[in-house]
């Protein structure tokens, strides 16, 4: 079935676009960025990223690296789940996450791929709320062509302005033993990935059908 082509943009959409356009400039923020993992990341030669994978979170005024992924056989799927802290200056539109490859023999680290994280993406919830975010990576290559690379999975939490108790609640560091659900190594809910992969779904036995209340 076909409908007539679009004629004009609805007032709601215009309103929505206007709202997005006139966002208030954000004040400066302290952020906890957890770089969880990368997926299908290739080094400039085209091979999967294997040895020496680490990530750097950059803002205009600060940058913080993660450790190097200890798994040398990650085949393009590095995993860190490491939280770093950065300061984001007022009015900054975004932060960057870059994946690099440390090389032996005194050679400098090689930038592999990067993604830009707009401020709007992690200011939806109140301070302390954990945002789970994923981005397409683009080559950091200097040739001027930004080729698509893999994916990076991160979580971002604004630390300042978060009520102490609330931040703690949202962070919900899963304690050992009676932990709930996802226990990432950083313990900071870094497990946007895979944490709930094994959730049980309520069941419908074979041949179950819809029932309707008897008018109670």
């Amino acid at each position: 079935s076909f409908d007539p082509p679009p004629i004009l943009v609805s007032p709601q959409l215009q309103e929505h676009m206007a709202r997005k356009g006139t966002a208030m400039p954000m004040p400066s923020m302290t952020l906890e960025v957890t770089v969880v993992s990368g997926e299908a990341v290739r080094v400039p030669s085209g091979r999967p990223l294997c040895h020496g994978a680490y990530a750097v979170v950059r803002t205009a005024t600060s940058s913080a690296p993660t450790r190097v992924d200890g798994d040398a056989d990650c085949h393009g799927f590095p995993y860190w789940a490491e939280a770093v802290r950065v300061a984001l200056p007022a009015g900054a539109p975004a932060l960057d996450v870059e994946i690099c490859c440390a090389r032996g023999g005194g050679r400098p680290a090689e930038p592999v791929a990067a993604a830009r994280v707009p401020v709007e993406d992690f200011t939806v919830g109140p301070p302390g709320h954990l945002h789970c975010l994923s981005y397409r990576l683009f080559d950091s290559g200097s040739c001027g062509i930004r080729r698509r690379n893999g994916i990076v999975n991160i979580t971002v939490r604004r630390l300042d302005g978060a009520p102490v108790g609330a931040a703690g609640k949202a962070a919900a560091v899963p304690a050992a033993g009676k932990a709930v659900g996802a226990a990432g190594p950083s313990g900071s809910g870094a497990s946007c990935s895979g944490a709930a992969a094994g959730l049980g779904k309520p069941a419908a036995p074979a041949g179950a059908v819809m029932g309707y209340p008897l008018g109670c």
Partner: protein
Amino acid sequence: MGGCFSVAGDVRGGMEAVGGGGGGRSHGGAAAQQGGPNDAVDHFFQARGLRGLYTPIELSFSATKLRNMDAFSKSDPMLVVYTNIKGKLEEIGRTEVILNSLEPSWITKATMSYQFEIVQPLIFRIYDVDTKYHQTSVKLLKLDQQDFLGEACCNLSEIVTKFNHSLTLNLRSDCGHGLHGTMTVHAEESDSSRMAVEMTLHCLNLENKDVLSKSDPFLRISKLVETAGPIPICKTEVVINNLNPVWRPITLTSQQYGSKDNPLLVECFDFESSGNHELIGAFQTTITQLENLYASKSGANFYSHKGQRKMKGQLFVDQLQEKVQHTFLDYISSGFELNFMVAVDFTASNGDPRVPQSLHYIDPSGRPNSYQQAILGVGEVLQFYDNDRRFPAWGFGARTQGHVSHCFNLNTATNDSEVVGVEGIMSAYTSSLYAVSLAGPTMFGPVINRAADIASQSLQYSNNKYFVLLIITDGVLTDIQETKDCIVRASDLPLSILIVGVGNADFQQMEILDADNGKRLESSTGRIATRDIVQFVPMREVQGGQISVVQSLLEELPGQFLQYMRTRGIKPQQQAPPGHASAPVYPPQQ
């Protein structure tokens, strides 16, 4: 193998761990990220008529102020509980007879399995059992020979959503008159359904299946069910080129493995990108036996395909710990809500509502059209999870007040976006049909954005609300990229989107939005969905099938809810919710 340097995203997706929880340490691949069972698991369930897993519930009963039927003593009450299946009452269980009591508190419990995706009506009948039958086993009692003391009914979801899982009901006589007595039903999820076992597994000396390199092993664990054979519940990620692999931790919930002595099948495969994974070896075990392996630090031998030949490959359990996981019902009964929202397609392709061929035709005989069926079906299940039952309802693709709108309030009378109850949605829908003129094109962006705005505004107030947007449509989207962008943004919000396709359009693009195939949605700006929040079902495909449209739409919701809450470390509230008239979910509309 040798394919590891050219792994395409989708092949790699097939190599990710699924269904084992991964303890948060999985690669974060598409499949694991979205949290749904993989296609293979889903296929197994569907092929064998088993969908999802059971949440066993134990019901216990008490009553007060029962009528006295005996002349010289008090009544001797017994309670019988039924459910209503296809209009037929089916007995779930009956309690013991309590002698001489008008305030009985029965010991015998009834068990049934809670299913989120269907309405489960319960009928309770209380009888006074005559003294001459007291030697008879309660199972053999003929109920028509006993005195009827009263009945009550409710839906199971009304009990489990209550704090403490207890609901008190007024008793009625057999002709429907109210009685003085009441009964209380309490639903208890067994503690064991919260248990999960996290394990780290490794193998030694696996057989080599590849010619030029070593095997690429992964494990699949299935539950053995007598009537249905093995049902896969978990698989590990693939470890490339390694005969002594160590996998990331896996988590099996008790809802997956059943009891600790339930037989499990552990199979080790050599990964092939073609999907024809070659079996390296298999053996049968139980959680108890795996615990013993862990305690004794010994290995379990794999056996060949037919099971006769013992192989030198062995499996070891490096770590094993029991964990407690909060269940969906833990959240729901502690004040968490599912808030229902509806958006209805008013594009011209539906056909003039005045002609019977139209998808919007209101049949004078009262038979609901596809739109009404979808609203009723989903609304009847979800209404119990929403405290105030005020549902935002919108229409899209119609001409209202002179211009085409892609998100207008369905309630044309008051122009309030919210309506009260499922009846409110139904009457707002019918009145809209006469108040607007159908136009086009079909666009989802504005309604999804509106729902996303409500969900993100609610985050400012509380984290115990989860939103469910039902979109019912007949058409092909013209704003597919805009819709994808909205969905990607919404994947970080407490929001799930259910789409019902009505009519005979080609709904292929909807399947793209429903990321069940393991490919994650990507926005035009390069942001990627962190989880699957869309569930699409075409109305025609499931009609006549075993599974109703509503069931297939709703069955992923509890999982999506739990994934959102657990990944953000949000836990059920420990205290009773402070009254039901809580602060407004979001500020009133201007």
